[in-house]
């Protein structure tokens, strides 16, 4: 049951997307997210969806994995859709007691949930094709210019690396503690909400304690290897932009340009 979490799980591969520089991918993801909020018309949403599918196709990922990445948030997506449908302003299409459905509501609801799905898909694509270590390298490199205004780029990247590194370890630990407590007759799946929350304590407390112990040990091990922060550290894998990254940047620029034209083009022409 604890193996279901796909967000942040790297799927090894050798595609165009896998080989891109992490900085390009991170920036492209941000630009795509911005593009999602530019989009208004149905056509622009269609273009965005097509773009995501083309990218996913290029990444050569199993479609099932991609769909699975939406799973953790489907409740929120459905909720968004529902709230927009029932609270939309405009001409009522259908009415039952206090519930009113409007055309505008449906359109807005679909748009909002599409936005959520697009955001989820693109961020999953980033994490599916980029290993966590490379990803944090990219983030560190992107944040380096902001060091002058006091952004602790290296420290942030190191924190992320450590956090990511320990996710599988903690999952394993949770699984083990759950087994140990169920061997002592603990029951995690019955009772009301409060009872269930209380039943989680025998898992959470040992988990916290072992996390602190691990943190302590890790800090000690890092100090023993003379870790003194980012100053003067060199790295084994230097990040270098290639021609591939140019191609990706062009693709992204074209997408944004098309979306901008679709949104403001009309007024531009009018002038």
């Amino acid at each position, binding site marked *: 049951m604890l193996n279901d979490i796909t967000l942040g799980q790297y799927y090894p591969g050798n595609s165009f997307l896998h080989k891109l520089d992490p900085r390009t991918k991170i920036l492209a993801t941000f630009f795509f997210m911005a593009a999602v909020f530019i989009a208004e018309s149905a056509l622009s949403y269609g273009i965005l969806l097509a773009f995501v599918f083309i990218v996913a196709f290029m990444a050569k990922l199993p479609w099932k994995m991609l769909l699975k990445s939406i799973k953790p948030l489907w409740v929120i997506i459905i909720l968004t859709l529902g709230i927009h449908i029932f609270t939309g302003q405009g001409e009522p299409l259908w009415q039952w007691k206090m519930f009113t459905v409007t055309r505008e509501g449906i359109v807005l609801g679909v748009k909002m949930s599409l936005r959520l799905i697009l955001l989820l898909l693109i961020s999953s694509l980033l994490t599916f094709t980029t290993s966590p270590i490379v990803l944090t390298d990219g983030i560190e490199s992107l944040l380096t210019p902001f060091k002058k205004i006091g952004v602790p780029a290296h420290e942030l990247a190191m924190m992320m690396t450590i956090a990511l590194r320990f996710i599988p370890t903690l999952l394993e630990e949770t699984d083990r503690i759950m*087994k140990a*407590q*169920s*061997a*002592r*007759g*603990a029951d995690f799946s019955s009772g009301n909400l409060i009872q269930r929350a209380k039943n989680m304590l*025998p898992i959470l407390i040992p988990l916290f*304690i072992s996390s602190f112990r691990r943190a302590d040990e890790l800090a000690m091990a890092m100090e023993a290897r003379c870790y003194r922060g980012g100053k003067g550290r060199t790295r084994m894998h230097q990040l270098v932009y290639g021609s591939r990254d140019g191609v990706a940047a062009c693709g992204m620029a074209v997408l944004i340009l098309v979306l901008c034209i679709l949104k403001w083009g009309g007024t531009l022409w009018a002038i």
Partner: protein
Amino acid sequence: MSIDVKNISYTYMAKTPFECQALDQVSVTINKGEFVAIIGHTGSGKSTLAEHLNGLLHPTTGAVYVDGIDVNGKGADAKKARHQVGMVFQYPEHQLFAETVYEDIAFGPRNSGKDPDTVDAAVRSAMEFVNLDFATFAQRSPFALSGGQMRRVAIAGVVAMEPDYLIMDEPSAGLDPRSRNMIFAQLMTIFKKRKMAVILITHSMEEAALYADRLLVMSGGKLCIDGKTSDVFINDEKTLEKLAVDVPESFKLAEELQQQGLPLKGAILTEAQLVKAIAKAKGWSGC
């Protein structure tokens, strides 16, 4: 009264690229009153087998019966059967959570639905078994104890459920020799007094030779050897070597001595047996 494992196989992460068969057609019967040691190198399926015995893992194929009841079944019967099998995991002190030693040990018996007086009695007797003084330790925080004491509290937490079958996964890992001996001495006492079955998973051949009557040797998810401890070490030495399983140090030393010309007789698996055999061969008296 026995645990019957009927032809179980288990595959981790089935239908993914990370698929791994951990158990392959294992069948074994463990009777009450037996002290069984499961040995085998890392990844041979020892712990996976143990986790099947009380229904923590569901076999992909096959079934496990405790006193004739399928442990993977639903209903009160199956639950009761699972409670008959106590399991002490590796590093059990990592599962402690309660504010006091008393509360932690009482967790298991309370979950079995025992009334407060029975729980209290079970906690007291479990603490006595692991040699923790009730007056001194009951109200202390389990996190303020030493490593050996924490482990004893954790073991007491399982013993307090009064299982008929007790599985221990490397109970002595990471302990100093004194705590190790203490844990085993107490284990033998409970074993003899309650006439339960003890299933010990271990990497130490000395422990297996010293305490177990019966030996199960696992390799590659299969049960390769099942027999009396002394028979297995003496008759199957070649097979054991092939399975990357060691024999006890005393056994090796006795062989060495025999090759050097010292006529040692009888089965020699433990230090005590070795000392006795040497004394006899040398004609020393008083040993």
